């Protein structure tokens, strides 16, 4: 029987680079190769896995600039604009998040990647134009330093479990 939690604990670190990676994972969690494959497919279908494949580091590949664009959108337009912004191929996330007034008025976040700032600004102008967002207050926060970037670790193994508690 496959234990989903055990599978996630192993899977969050990525697939091993061996000929039969699913079999290796199965061995680690006391399951079978077929069960592991089936379960990953199920999680993809359920939408718990958004994407399964090569995870690239865009900065290393020449995409030096990432601009986080934050918008203060009236509540009745946030769904419409969230969907519209999310369709651009240079936008790699479009999330609604809570406002934290008075410090933080923005409720929609988009991440735009580009080779440089000009590239990002051109992309932003295109979004504003084609989604009719000219009157929406927004700000763009460029990243100027990356201190850490790696895959999310949701479940820590025993040795790391106590950190920061």
């Amino acid at each position: 029987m496959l234990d989903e939690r055990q599978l996630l604990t192993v899977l969050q670190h990525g697939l091993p680079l061996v000929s039969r990676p699913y079999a290796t994972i199965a061995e680690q969690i006391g399951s079978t190769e077929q069960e592991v494959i089936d379960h990953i497919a199920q999680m993809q279908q359920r939408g718990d896995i958004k994407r399964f494949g090569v995870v690239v580091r865009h900065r290393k590949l020449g995409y030096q600039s990432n601009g986080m664009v934050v918008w203060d959108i009236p509540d009745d337009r946030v769904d419409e604009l969230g969907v519209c912004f999310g369709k651009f191929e240079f936008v790699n996330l479009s999330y609604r998040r809570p406002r934290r007034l008075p410090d933080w008025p923005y409720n929609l976040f988009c991440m735009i990647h580009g080779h440089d700032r000009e590239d990002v600004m051109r992309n932003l102008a295109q979004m504003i134009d084609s989604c009719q967002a000219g009157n929406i207050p927004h700000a763009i926060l460029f990243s100027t330093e990356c201190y850490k970037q790696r895959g999310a670790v949701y479940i820590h193994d025993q040795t790391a479990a106590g950190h920061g508690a």
Partner: protein
Amino acid sequence: MHPVHSQQQLYRLLNDFQHDFPLSPTPYADMAAKLGMSETELLEWLKALQDEGSISRIGAVFRPNRIGASTLAAMAVPETRLQTVADLISSYPSVNHNYKREHHFNLWFVVTAENETRLESILRDMEQRSGLRVLSLPMEKDYHIDLGFPLQLAGNPHA
């Protein structure tokens, strides 16, 4: 040690396999066949790309908050303390992305944990250790379908 691969192969490897990675017993052999190389060559190449940092891993991108809990957090850190506080935040295993951004809120990071309770306690711990307030902005709705990251590398015919 690993053989030189064409820019075209690199583009296809990094672009075409960001999603729909084969769920067959021998996924790397299947990928290698499509790229016109041997499985061993591909595995060595992937290892090299991982070592140099171009790819972070092969695997799953989980939908936020479906598995465990996560949040985007921000802090307004005085410039003179920024490196120290950034290092403190990066030292948490629960933090994956941590960036400096141009804004009054100048430190932005993602925290993931097993559940909400654990996430909250990590955020409180960060506030206590830094003496600064942490703004927590969890995702409420996802409007984007993740198709990976479209690359435009030199020599890519689709550029």
